[in-house]
């Protein structure tokens, strides 16, 4: 059984759980064929692996299609407001170290209206697991371009094509001092669960970008990464300690200028992926290999997984230290302060 150091303070389940335990009685209302179904099923069947009490698990979401997720998880949950889930979850995680707190968000929720909260949660390294469902479109508002849509995207709000350059969410996360950054795909349950496992093990904030197909407004956005005919050449599967290979006959090498590039196997030596590298620069360079429009050469897997003190643990430690140094607070003494006078009857 996998060990989850990040869940050290979370009470253990009494017995084995199953995916069924994590399903609610609520009818799932995503569009038929939505990638969210696959993610939900993968998460529900993964959760028992954590071996923690269901009641000590909380899913917090913002607004958007993905943010309906908590309603379908038989844990504690909050469907909050647009973009604010990381902030709300921070308050919860920082005050309750006995909980496993998950944030479910989307590309609009996390990167547009909630961009500020996302980057600050990452730099603080609060014990949160953030699942960012990226479908490169606004689904719930019926099809406007999102901050991850490719330039020139024709949508209802951009009939002549969108003008703004997209975010690469993983580049952004690395720039925001994230300690855990990973990417996976809705349709690959085995890979998705392996990434969730690594995220759950990580102490601090984990950002997991999940490429998720919106079959109504942006169908096939990730087809190149899924089609048997193209995926092997388009995907770069990262494994810690393994050489970074591309398809059957290419690999990633470091050029003389220090940049990463894709070369035939006959040229140079493949870099070996080190998710635990102290510096983020190689991970960042890996995120830049993908073509922003076509997603060709998209790395998936755990790009970065490093140790840094966790915000909630540090906060708890300050409280403990204050009590050790000053003693448990005495309200009467506090109110009186150092300068009082008495009026006699």
């Amino acid at each position, binding site marked *: 059984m996998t060990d989850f150091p990040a869940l050290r303070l979370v009470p253990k389940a009494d017995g084995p759980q199953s995916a069924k335990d994590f399903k609610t009685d609520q009818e799932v209302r995503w569009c038929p064929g939505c990638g969210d179904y696959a993610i939900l099923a993968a998460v529900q069947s993964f959760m028992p692996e954590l071996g923690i009490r*269901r009641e000590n698990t909380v899913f917090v979401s913002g607004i958007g299609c993905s943010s309906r997720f908590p309603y379908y998880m038989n844990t504690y949950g909050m469907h909050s407001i647009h973009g604010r889930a990381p902030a709300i979850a921070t308050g919860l995680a920082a005050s309750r170290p006995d909980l496993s707190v998950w944030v479910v968000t989307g590309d609009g929720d996390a990167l547009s209206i909630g961009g500020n909260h996302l980057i600050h949660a990452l730099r603080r390294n609060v014990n949160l697991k953030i699942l960012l469902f990226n479908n490169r479109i606004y689904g719930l508002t019926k099809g406007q371009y999102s901050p991850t849509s490719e330039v020139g995207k024709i949508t209802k709000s951009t009939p002549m094509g969108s003008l703004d350059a997209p975010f690469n969410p993983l580049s952004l996360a690395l720039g925001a001092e994230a300690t855990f950054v990973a990417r996976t795909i809705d349709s690959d349950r085995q890979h998705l669960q392996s990434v969730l496992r690594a995220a759950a093990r990580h102490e601090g904030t984990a950002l997991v970008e999940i490429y998720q197909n919106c079959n109504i407004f942006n169908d096939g956005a990730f087809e190149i990464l899924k089609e048997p005919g193209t995926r092997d050449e388009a995907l770069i599967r990262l494994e810690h300690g393994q050489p970074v290979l591309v398809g059957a006959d290419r690999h990633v090498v470091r050029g003389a200028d220090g940049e990463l590039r894709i070369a035939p196997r006959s040229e140079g030596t493949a870099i070996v992926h080190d998710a635990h590298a102290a510096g983020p620069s190689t991970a960042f360079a890996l995120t830049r290999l993908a073509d922003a429009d076509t997603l060709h050469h998209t790395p998936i897997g755990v790009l970065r997984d490093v140790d840094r003190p966790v915000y909630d643990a540090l906060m708890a430690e300050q409280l403990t230290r204050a009590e050790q140094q000053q003693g448990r607070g005495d309200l009467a003494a506090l109110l009186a302060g150092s300068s009082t006078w008495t009026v006699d009857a």
Partner: protein
Amino acid sequence: MTSQVDQSEAVDGPDGEGPAASARSGPGRPAKPIRRLDRVIIRFAGDSGDGMQLTGDRFTSETAAFGNDLSTLPNFPAEIRAPAGTLPGVSSFQLHFADHDILTPGDAPDVLVAMNPAALKANLPDLPAGAEIIVNTDEFTKRALAKVGYAASPLEDGSLEAFRLHPVPLTALTLEALKDSGLARKDAERAKNMFALGLLSWMYHRPTHGTELFLRQKFAKKPQIAEANVTAFRAGWNFGETTEDFAVSYEVPPAKLAPGTYRNISGNLALSYGLVAAGERSGLPVFLGSYPITPASDILHELSRHKNFGVRTFQAEDEIAGIGAALGAAFGGALGVTTTSGPGVALKSETIGLAVSLELPLVIVDIQRGGPSTGLPTKTEQADLLQAMFGRNGEAPVPIVAPATPAECFTAALDAARIALTYRTPVFLLSDGYLANGSEPWKLPEVDELPDLRVEFATEPNGPDGAFRPYQRDPHTLARPWAVPGTPGLEHRIGGIEKQDGTGNISYDPANHDFMVRTRQAKVDNIVVPDVEVDDPSGEARVLVLGWGSTYGPITAAVRRVRADGGRVAQAHLRHLNPFPANLGAVLERYEKVIVPEMNLGQLALLLRAEYLVDAQSYNQVRGLPFKAAQLADVLHAALGSLDAEETR
């Protein structure tokens, strides 16, 4: 009788002799006459870098220790270091102290300490004829005079003849006193505020031990600076005693306050302590999510110092995250609090709406300042009432509590927590810049007698077949159960989408929405708040003056003046703005005229008119400053006069 518990029995002067003793019968020194006063208003004014707030604070602490009743009004620019010597850069601190119960920092200073020409010019219009002015003549240079538009020195052109002027070379005297201190001139000069404080402390027989102790603690790491400040302070005292310019000193005997132990306290400190106390009395950990903003930041600073009470403070990335984190903590069973001022409330509005929908306890503290937009960050106003009342999308009622005095901020915080915890609702606590920074004596409460705020979390399923229904309400309070994560069997999901009554599941059903909107409103409408008390000693008043928040002091002082003149006026003050006290409608009906003074353009009056169809008359001021008692007394006299005139017509 008063005694200082933190001080030696004798009230020592800087020279080790009691000022009273030395002034009355001190051997070896000619005694100066002492004049007895019942109250004094002093204003210290200088550049924002002159340390006037510190000087005022110290004089206040000395005065509190002496046992006078007091009330203070700090007034400072928003700029940290405004351009030196300019009118906008003037910072002042006004203190009113008395041998009796007083209510305001006073309308007009009896004494002005002006550290430079700008301070004199900015404050002169507030001085009544006969007031004493102590000026630092060293700063009245040609250049400094020209900077504020004085063609000739007002000290010499006779323009101050109506006042009792004391020209004192404060800078030179301070430098002289510190010539052996080893300090550079620039550093030595900075102690001139302590020289001024020493002089005023002599004039008014203030105990000085506390100030010396304070200076030594404040500069514990710089003993040379500490000693220099103490030396300047003592030099100021001795200067008053020896120089002939100050022929008289004044005595304001201690006030006869109700028996008990007192301390001096500002509104923001009282509010902070109220939040700590609410945590202790509820048994819940306090979680403050906040973003720095004037004039609320002091509460974040203060609470961050009390981690040994289990208080968590979180300085968020913005106002929205501040309240978001507090709400998240509340979901987890903490006493969630967010502190801000008007612009921050605007940003938090959406999350407040979410808290209304989630029905979780949350205390939202708004230290109101001048608006709109950035407005007047360091000045007071009470123009956020309607924002607190209505500033959200949809029908989103939020209870509102408003303290009337600095010390009352303590009980208001406990009361806001009580309502939040009992009714599972966000609650607004509306303080303002005047209450926040002003201070007054506070009779310490007995900790055991503070309200019991303990709550019961849900522990068992409450629905059929062992189901948990998160929106099944208490029939009396209409509060829903508070089931915190970690409780087995009560797993549930809540959100901002409309919920089905009882189950809390998403519901778009029209009848259910209508029911839920009305139920949330009914929950707030039915909150139990104390009746409003009416003060009408004659029982025959026909005019009622009704206020809320920090206008309590000046309104009450005005009412006393009117009554002293034989006028009959009733007074009531609201501490609860939503819901209003149950008896308010009946109270309003009893009076022919209702006057509502507010530091806004009539927000409470608007609510009263809408709720009770009463012809409430507004009296408004939005100058960033509190009302003056005389000003309100004129308004009340006029109201009484107009009633009489109507009768004789």
